[in-house]
């Protein structure tokens, strides 16, 4: 087991180095002088220009610059935002919980709807329900979620007035950030109105972000379930006279969920991609919206650091999923 973990870890190092290279060259590949590019249309005077060249180390050889950059990254120093002058890592830390909260709710929504839908579709194969699930999931898989979000706003926020259009919390509430997760913080502060407000703000974004994973999970559950239901041990369980619910819900589901777990792991990257779009539509104050704003403001340190941090998070989650998978399924461990 230890060897398996070490092998997986050793695969991560070159990937991480590659990401730092990408982040490092990001600023240097932008055509023109990086300092002037960052200064934008306001322009910059010669003295300040000189000072910034020194500060960013642009006057030294590229290899030395990269060495310095790596050293800083390993010490958790990702530079400062040009706009706010805040360290990139602390801005990321402040916004990341909002993205995680949204992503967790989205994946929970996808699991709670997708797994039962997939199971029922498999058990009632070729029924109207089955065809409905397959058609819906193909549509969900093809859905441009930035449009889907606008449609839901149009229906539920504008026409019906059930949910707020954007943001994370109604303005009249203030919750002291303890964990950064508003659902937990508002519960801790015992403010029922704030909690309710946080929940209704979350519903639409979570549905939008959960749509793609939901489609994948429903399809995956259905096909895995169909495969397992054809196995001999299921026939044995049925022949023993076990109630169908127990055969499907316990005997079959356990094995059918193994590929589904892998798919959930693979959805992490999809979730972050979707979060960039979802946060933009709903003005959700998370890292996705922050990155898009960084591009619009030419805030390269933020883009550089944010990309590296998001990539690292995805990599770590994938590693955890792999290791967890090795724990569940010993065959994987030995094949490595």
């Amino acid at each position, binding site marked *: 087991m230890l060897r398996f973990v070490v092998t997986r870890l050793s695969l991560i190092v070159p990937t991480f180095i590659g990401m730092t290279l990408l982040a490092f060259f990001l600023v240097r590949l932008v055509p023109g002088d990086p300092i002037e590019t960052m200064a934008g249309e306001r322009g910059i005077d010669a003295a300040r220009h000189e000072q910034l060249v020194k500060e960013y180390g642009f006057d030294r050889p590229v290899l030395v610059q990269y060495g310095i950059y790596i050293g800083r990254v390993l010490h958790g120093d990702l530079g400062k935002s040009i706009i706010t002058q805040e360290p990139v890592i602390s801005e990321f830390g402040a916004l990341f919980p909002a993205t995680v909260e949204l992503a967790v709710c989205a994946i929970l929504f996808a699991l709670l709807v997708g797994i039962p839908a997939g199971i029922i579709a498999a058990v009632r194969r070729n029924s109207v329900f089955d065809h409905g699930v397959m058609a819906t999931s193909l549509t969900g898989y093809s859905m441009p979620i930035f449009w889907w979000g606008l449609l839901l706003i149009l229906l539920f926020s504008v026409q019906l007035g059930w949910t707020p259009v954007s943001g994370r919390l109604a303005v009249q509430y203030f919750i002291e950030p303890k964990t950064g997760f508003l659902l937990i913080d508002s519960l801790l502060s015992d403010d029922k109105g704030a909690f309710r407000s946080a929940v209704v703000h979350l519903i639409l974004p979570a549905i939008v972000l959960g749509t793609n994973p939901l489609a994948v999970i429903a399809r995956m559950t259905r096909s895995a379930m169909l495969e397992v239901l054809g196995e001999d041990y299921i026939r044995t369980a049925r022949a023993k006279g076990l109630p169908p619910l127990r055969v499907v819900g316990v005997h079959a589901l356990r094995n059918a969920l193994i590929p589904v777990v892998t798919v959930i792991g693979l959805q992490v990257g999809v979730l972050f*991609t979707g979060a960039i779009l979802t946060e933009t539509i709903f003005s959700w104050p998370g890292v996705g919206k922050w990155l898009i704003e960084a591009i619009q403001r030419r805030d390269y340190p933020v883009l550089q650091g944010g990309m590296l941090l998001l990539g690292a998070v995805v990599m770590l989650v994938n590693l955890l999923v792999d290791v967890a998978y090795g724990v569940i399924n010993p065959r994987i461990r030995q094949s490595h």
Partner: protein
Amino acid sequence: MAEVISSPVALAAPPGPLREFWLSFRANRGAVIGLWVVLALLLLALLAPWVAPHAPHETNSAAFLRPPAWQAGGSIQYLLGTDAIGRDILSRLIWGARLSLSIGLGVVILSVVAGIALGLIAGFARGMVEIAIMRLMDIVLTLPSLLLAIVIVAILGPGLVNAMLAVAVVLLPHYVRITRASVVAEVSKDYVTAARVSGAGTLRLMFSEVLPNCAAPLIVQASLGISTAILDAAALGFLGLGAQPPSPEWGTMLADAREFVLRAWWVVTFPGLMILIAVLAFNLMGDGLRDALDPKLKR
């Protein structure tokens, strides 16, 4: 002599590969619908100048945010209504089909060609070259796809061509991986050894021996790649990083329409619907191709 041999063979001829493919593709109803929709979109794109009732950039200051024809206040002149500066939405959607289909095809062609080249090199060279290429592809796969595309566009600057390049890079690893995997599987087979022994050079081995045998999975992946390309390019357009206004690209139209979501449902609804229809059609067709071309899944 030749006649004697050829006539019985011709009588018992099995269905040719193309016919066999078509028979199993046709059995999948969704795939056929997808194919028809794709053909219709292609036709629409080709005939845009003749089919579209108005020019895509023609504005009419007397008809701002006119609702679709069937709603009160709408007119038959603007079937799907007009946008905030009086442009006909239907015409822009038809012209947009040109853009979106070219984006889909262009991106995938770019990505497939580069992917095949890199995959062939990795599969034949092995050693350090292979490790370097495959590691690079792993990095590309690790980053969330849209994030990587955004970073590339941030480097190159926003615009349609740069967005296409970015999406092509994001899709690249799939083609490299498929090509390399098929190459590695094929190279050890007897027919390749035979070709090599009889003096075929590496290039000949690559392109006329091995590559045709990797074609099926590449075709399937390419047809599914078109839908991803359309979707991602539209997402970049929506974020203001892809095609720039006043281009009638569907994602860019949506971005333009965002601020009118509260007043004019039609400016937001139709461009997105077109994206969904196009993506869905290519996905349906791709699924059908996979079922028809992948012998492992054949019923």
